[in-house]
C-alpha cells in the first residue's frame, strides 16, 4: 500500500507544491495554519482538484493531470476524518454509519451494528451526534469511515477542537486504531507534540511547499533545515560559519562554539533548544573565561561544585524575564552579538531555585550561559 503525491495548485497568491510518498505507517503533515495541510488532504480525497501533478494510491491513479484522470471522491476509497467529525446531525449514530454502507437495508443495519459494537458504541446507536460525548462522536466518525474499508485514513486536526483532558484519551484511542490498520495513515496537525507521540514519519509544510519526508526521530533530534528546526520547537538560532571540523562561528552571537558532531561545510544556521542552555553563574566575568578547551567535557554539566566548563560559555545581558509557576524564562543577549540581529536573543529556561541562586539578576544584569556541544543543531 503506497500513497504517492506530487501536486501543484495555485490559489490566489498562495501556491501549493507538495510532494511526498508513504508506504504505510503514520505520516504526519506538520505545518502552521495556512500552510496547505488541509488543502493537501482535500486534493487526495478529490474534494479539491490540483492544477497539475499526480496522486496514486495503491497502484490506482486517483489524479493525473497529464492523462486527464480525476476520479470522483466516492470512487477513491479514502477515509477522511474531518476536524469536527462532520457527523450528520439529523441522523443517529447507527444511521450515520449505515449511510456509508451499501446493500439492502437489513444488510446495512447488520454491518453498521457490527462495526459500532466493535467500537463499544452499541449503547448509543440510537442517539443523535448532539446527544453523545466528544469522544463518542469521534468513534462514530471513525466507525463510519472504517466501515467502508478505505485504502487510506486521513485525519484533519482531529484533536484540535477538544480540551486537553479529552485530548489525551482520544489521542490514545486513535493511535490504537492506527496500529491495527495496515494501510497508510496521513495525519494533519500543527501540534509538534502530537506528531512526536503519534507519527512515524513527518512531512513539514511551509507556505504551501513540502519538505522531504523524514522520520519523526530525525525531525526532532536532528532537523536538517532551519524551517524543520523551527517547526520542531527549537527557539534559539544564529547564522553560522564553519571554522573547523568541530567548531563553528555563531555570527549573530559573536562567539565560536565547539560541537560534538562534525560540522558540514555548507552549514548556514545553528540552533539550540532552550533545555540545552544552562546558566553558569552571574559572578563569572569575561576575563575569567578560561582558555583550556580540554576541560569542556560534557560530563561536567549540571554539577554545582565542579569547575565551570570552559567551552561554549557566553556572557550575556539579561533582557526580559518571564516568570512561570515553577520556572523562569530569561531572554538574554550575548554581549558580543550584532546589535541589530533578530537572532541575537537567546531563551534560557531554569527552575526558580536556580534563578534565585544566580541572585535574580534584573535587566540589564549579566549572566553566563553554557551551550552543550552535543545539542547544537547544524542546519541548512
Amino acid at each position, binding site marked *: 500500500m503506497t500513497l504517492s503525491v506530487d501536486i501543484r495548485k495555485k*490559489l*490566489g497568491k498562495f501556491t501549493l507544491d507538495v510532494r511526498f510518498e508513504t508506504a504505510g505507517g503514520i505520516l504526519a503533515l506538520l505545518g502552521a*495554519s*495556512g500552510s496547505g495541510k*488541509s488543502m493537501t488532504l*482535500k486534493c487526495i*480525497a*478529490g*474534494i*479539491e482538484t490540483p492544477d497539475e501533478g499526480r496522486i496514486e494510491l495503491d497502484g490506482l491513479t486517483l489524479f493525473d493531470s497529464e492523462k486527464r484522470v480525476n476520479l*470522483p*471522491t*466516492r470512487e*477513491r476509497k*479514502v*477515509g*477522511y476524518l*474531518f*476536524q*469536527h*467529525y*462532520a*457527523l*450528520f*446531525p*439529523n*441522523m443517529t449514530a447507527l444511521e450515520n454509519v449505515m*449511510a*456509508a454502507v*451499501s446493500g439492502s437495508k437489513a444488510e446495512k443495519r447488520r454491518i453498521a451494528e457490527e462495526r459500532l459494537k466493535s467500537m463499544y458504541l452499541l449503547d448509543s446507536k440510537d442517539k*443523535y*451526534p*448532539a*446527544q*453523545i460525548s*466528544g469522544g463518542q*462522536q469521534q468513534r462514530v466518525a471513525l466507525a*463510519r*469511515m472504517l466501515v*467502508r474499508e478505505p485504502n487510506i485514513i486521513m485525519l484533519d486536526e482531529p484533536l484540535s*477542537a477538544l480540551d486537553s483532558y479529552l485530548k489525551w484519551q482520544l489521542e490514545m484511542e486513535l493511535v490504537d486504531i492506527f496500529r491495527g490498520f495496515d494501510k497508510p495513515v496521513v495525519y494533519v496537525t500543527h501540534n509538534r507534540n502530537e506528531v512526536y507521540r503519534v507519527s512515524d514519519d513527518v512531512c513539514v509544510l511551509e507556505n504551501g511547499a513540502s519538505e522531504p519526508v523524514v522520520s519523526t526521530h530525525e525531525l526532532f533530534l536532528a532537523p536538517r533545515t532551519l524551517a524543520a528546526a523551527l517547526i520542531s520547537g527549537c527557539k534559539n538560532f544564529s547564522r553560522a560559519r564553519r571554522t573547523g571540523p568541530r567548531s563553528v562561528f555563531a555570527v549573530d552571537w559573536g562567539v565560536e562554539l565547539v560541537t560534538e558532531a562534525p560540522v558540514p561545510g555548507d552549514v548556514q544556521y545553528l540552533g539550540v533548544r532552550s533545555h540545552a542552555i544552562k546558566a553558569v553563574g552571574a559572578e563569572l566575568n569575561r576575563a575569567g573565561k578560561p582558555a583550556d578547551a580540554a576541560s569542556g567535557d560534557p560530563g561536567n554539566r549540571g554539577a554545582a561544585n565542579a569547575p565551570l566548563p570552559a567551552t561554549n560559555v557566553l556572557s550575556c545581558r539579561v533582557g526580559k524575564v518571564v516568570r512561570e509557576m515553577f520556572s523562569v524564562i530569561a531572554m538574554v543577549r550575548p554581549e558580543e552579538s550584532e546589535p541589530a540581529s533578530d537572532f541575537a536573543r537567546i531563551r534560557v529556561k531554569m527552575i526558580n531555585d536556580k534563578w534565585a541562586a544566580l541572585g535574580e539578576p534584573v535587566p540589564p544584569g549579566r549572566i553566563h550561559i553554557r551551550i552543550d556541544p552535543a545539542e547544537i543543531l547544524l542546519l541548512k
Partner: protein
Amino acid sequence: MVFSPILLSIEVAVCATSVSFVLGLFIAKQVVKLRRLKSLVDGILTLPLVLPPTVVGFFLLLTFGRNGLLGDMLAAMDVSVVFTLAGAIIAATVVSFPLMYRSARGAFEQFDRDLIYAGRTIGMSETKIFWRVIMPGCKPGIISGLVLTFARALGEFGATIMLAGNIPGKTQTMSLAIYSAVASGNREKAYMWVAIIMLISFTCMFLMNIFAARTRKSVKAGAAAGSIIKDEKSLPEGTAIL
C-alpha cells in the same frame, strides 16, 4: 360567490408558493454554484422584491399582454393570461419568488461544506446527499422562506391588479376585495376581509414559529456539539461546491 375571494386567494397563494418553492430551491442551488456573475444574477432574481409591485405588474403586462414577448406566443396557443386567474397566479409567483430564493440560498450557503464532503468520501450519491444531508440541515431556513413566500403571495395586490385586474368571482382576491370595499364605502365588508386575512396570516406565522423553534432546537444542539462549527480556514468564494 360571497366568499369567492377567500377561495381565490388561497388558490393563488398555494399555486404561487408551490411554483416558487420548486423554482426557488432549484435556482438557489445553481446560483450558489456560480463562480462568475453571481451578484448580477442574484440582483436580477431579487429585483421583484425591491421594485414597487405596480412596476412588476407593468413589466408583466408588457410581457404577457397583446404584442408582448410571451403574450403573442400564448395567444397562438389560445391561452390568455391577462385578466384571468392564471395572471393572478403569475403575478403572485413573480413577486413572492425572491423570498423563497433568498431564504434557500442563505440556507445553502451557510450549510457546513464538510458534511457534503463527508457524504462523498463515504460514497453517498449526490442525490442522496442533497435529500438526506443538505435538505434536513437547511430545513429551518427553507421553512421560514416558505411561510414568507406564502404570506406574500396571499397578500399580493399591486402586480395582481395590473395583470389580472379586479374581477369579482374571477380574479378578485381578498386584498383586492378590501380595496373595492373601501373604494365603494362598504366599511363592514372591508372589516370582514381584513379580519379574515389577519386570521390566516397570524395562523401561518404562529405555525411557522412553533415549527422553527422545534427544528432550530435540534440543529442548535448539533452545532453546540461541534458538528456545524465553521472552519476559519474555509475556502475562498470561487470554490463553492454544492
